[in-house]
C-alpha cells in the first residue's frame, strides 16, 4: 500500500471472476454483468474472457467503454435512452431493452435496415408481473405495465421489428423477497405477450437483486432453480448482476490525516470519505450500522490502545461524512491506512463533486 495514492479503490479480478462463476452456477442460467455496478474498464478487461454471457449498459459512456472490447452480447437498458444512444447501440448490434412507448416510437421512426440483426427486448415493470410480492416497498418507475407492453408489441410487429425478449427486474436486494413470484408469474406473462407477436419470445431476463452477502448454499437458490426450470423449457432464462458480482472484489483505502479527541470519542480524519465511497456513510439508511475497518500501520512504532469509541470520518464538510467506527482498539496514527473491504460495487456512485475533492484512484491486484 505504501506506493498507492489514497483515497483509492483496489479491485481484485480473480475474486470477481470466481464470484461470477459461482453465482452463474448457483442460478444455473446465463449471467449478464451490470456494468453500472463497476465501470472500471481495467477491471472489465481482466474479466472479459469470463464474462461471456453479456454485459448490460445504462449509458452511452458505458457503451463507449466496452464497444470493441468484448464480443459478448450487449444489452442497452435505460429509461433515459435518447436518439444518440439508440443509434450508437444499433451500430454496436446491442440488444435494445425498451423501457417505454416513446422509445418504441423512436425506434420505429428510424431506418433500421442497416442494423440487422436487430435485437429488441421490452422491459416490464416488476409490479405488473408480481404485484403482491413487489408491494409498495419495491414499487419503481422502470419498464411498462402490461397494457403498454402489449401496445409496444403491436407497434413493433406492425413495424416488422422482432421482439426477442422480455426484461423484468424488481430492484436491488429483492432476490429473497420477489424472485420466486416473478419466476412463477413470468410464464403467463410470456404467453400473453406472445399472442401479440409473430414469433415466440427467445429469452427473459429476470434481473437479480441479489445481495452482496449471497451464499450459494442457501436453500433459496435450490428452490429458485426449480421454479425457473419450467420456464427454461420454453425459452432462455437469464439474470443480471452487479452488486453481488463486484462487492467482494473491491476494497476502499483511505489514509489518516489527523487524530483528535472529542470528549470520550476519538475522531480519525481520513483523506477519503463520503465523497469517494458514498455507501460507507449510509446516508440512505434510517438505522446506520457503520462498518469496522481494518487498520494498516504505515511506519514503525506502537499504536495507543483505547477502549473509547473511534469514529472514522471523511474529508468533506458534511456532518454525515462518517464512514466507519470501532469500539475501542488500536488508535491509528497519521499516515496509517484504513481499509474497508466489500466496496467493489457502485464505487462511482457519488452525490456531487462537492468541494472538488481529489477523486479516488483505482488499482488492480495483479
Amino acid at each position, binding site marked *: *500500500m505504501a506506493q498507492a495514492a489514497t483515497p483509492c479503490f483496489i479491485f481484485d479480478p480473480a475474486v470477481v471472476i470466481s464470484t461470477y462463476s459461482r453465482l452463474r452456477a448457483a442460478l444455473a442460467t446465463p449471467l449478464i454483468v451490470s456494468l453500472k455496478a463497476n465501470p472500471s*474498464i481495467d477491471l472489465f*478487461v481482466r474479466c472479459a474472457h469470463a464474462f*461471456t454471457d453479456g454485459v448490460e449498459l445504462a449509458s452511452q459512456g458505458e457503451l463507449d467503454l466496452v464497444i470493441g472490447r468484448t464480443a459478448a452480447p450487449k444489452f442497452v437498458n435505460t429509461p433515459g435512452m435518447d436518439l444518440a444512444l439508440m443509434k450508437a447501440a444499433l451500430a454496436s448490434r446491442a440488444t435494445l431493452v425498451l423501457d417505454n412507448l416513446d422509445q418504441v416510437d423512436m425506434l420505429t421512426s428510424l431506418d433500421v435496415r442497416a442494423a440487422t440483426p436487430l435485437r429488441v427486448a421490452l422491459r416490464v415493470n416488476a409490479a405488473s408481473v408480481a404485484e403482491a410480492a413487489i408491494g409498495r416497498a419495491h414499487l419503481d418507475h422502470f419498464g411498462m405495465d402490461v397494457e403498454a407492453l402489449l401496445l409496444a408489441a403491436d407497434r413493433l410487429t406492425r413495424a416488422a421489428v422482432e421482439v426477442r425478449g422480455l426484461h423484468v427486474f424488481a430492484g436491488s436486494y429483492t432476490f429473497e423477497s420477489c424472485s420466486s413470484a416473478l419466476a412463477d408469474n413470468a410464464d403467463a406473462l410470456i404467453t400473453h405477450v406472445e399472442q401479440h407477436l409473430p414469433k415466440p419470445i427467445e429469452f427473459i431476463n429476470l434481473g437479480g437483486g441479489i445481495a452482496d452477502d449471497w451464499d450459494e448454499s442457501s436453500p433459496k437458490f435450490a428452490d429458485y432453480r426449480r421454479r425457473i426450470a419450467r420456464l427454461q423449457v420454453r425459452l432462455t432464462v437469464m439474470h443480471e448482476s452487479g452488486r453481488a458480482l463486484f462487492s467482494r472484489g473491491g476494497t476502499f483505502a483511505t489514509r489518516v490525516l489527523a487524530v483528535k479527541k472529542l470528549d470520550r470519542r476519538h475522531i480519525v480524519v481520513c483523506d477519503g470519505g463520503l465523497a469517494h465511497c458514498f455507501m460507507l456513510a449510509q446516508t440512505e439508511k434510517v438505522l446506520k450500522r457503520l462498518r469496522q475497518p481494518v487498520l494498516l500501520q504505515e511506519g514503525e512504532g506502537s499504536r495507543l490502545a483505547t477502549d473509547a469509541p473511534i469514529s472514522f470520518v471523511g474529508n468533506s464538510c458534511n456532518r454525515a461524512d462518517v464512514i466507519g467506527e470501532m469500539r475501542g482498539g488500536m488508535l491509528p496514527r497519521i499516515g496509517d491506512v484504513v481499509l474497508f473491504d466489500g466496496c467493489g460495487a457502485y464505487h462511482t456512485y457519488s452525490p456531487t463533486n462537492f468541494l472538488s475533492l481529489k477523486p479516488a484512484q*483505482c*488499482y488492480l*491486484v*495483479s
Partner: protein
Amino acid sequence: MLPGAPVTYSGRLQRSPFVGSLCAAELIAPPIALPSEYVTLRRCERHISAPVLMSLTQRYRLLADLAGAAKRHVPAISLTLVRVASPSYSVPMPAELLQPDVLPVLDPDALAPRLVAAGRSNIVAIADDIRCDSYELGANRISLALHRPSGDDVAAAFLAFLRSSPLPPCLTEVDIMPDATPDFPRSPTP
C-alpha cells in the same frame, strides 16, 4: 551448440509476473460519437480465450526489465529489439526502452536475421503478443532470442539470464533452443 547458432526461449504466460502487486487503472474509453465509429469498433470484437494479465504499463515494465537484465548479464549484447506495435495513447514508454542500444520495432523476429545478415552479432529480440487490453489480439506468448552470439560464453551467459528472469515460473508451453538445457526451470503444464 553450433558456433553462432541462435539461443531462443519462448512460452505462453499463464499468470502475471507481477502477482500480488498493485497496478494503477489506466485504460480509457475511445473518443467516439458517430454510429460509423461504433460499427468500426464493433468489427474489432473477437472471442479470445487468452485473458488480459497485465496493464500497458506493466508490459512496458516487463520489457524494460528484461532488456536491462539481459544487458547486465551479457554485456556483449549490441542491440535489443522489442516489439512495439504502436504508441499507447494513454501510457508513456519508459526511458529504458528508448536507450541507444534498444530499438522498439514492429517485428523483432523479422528484423533480427536481417541485422545478422548485415554482419551484426549479439542481437537480442524480445517478441510478444501479450494482451493488455481487450482490443488486442494475442495469446500472451513471449519469446527471447539471442542472434549470432559471438561465443559460447555469451550464449551461456544469455541462458543464465533467462534462468534468473521472472519468466520461467509464469510460462507454459515452453520451448528452448538449442535443446541442450534439460535443467532449465519449466512451469508445469496446466
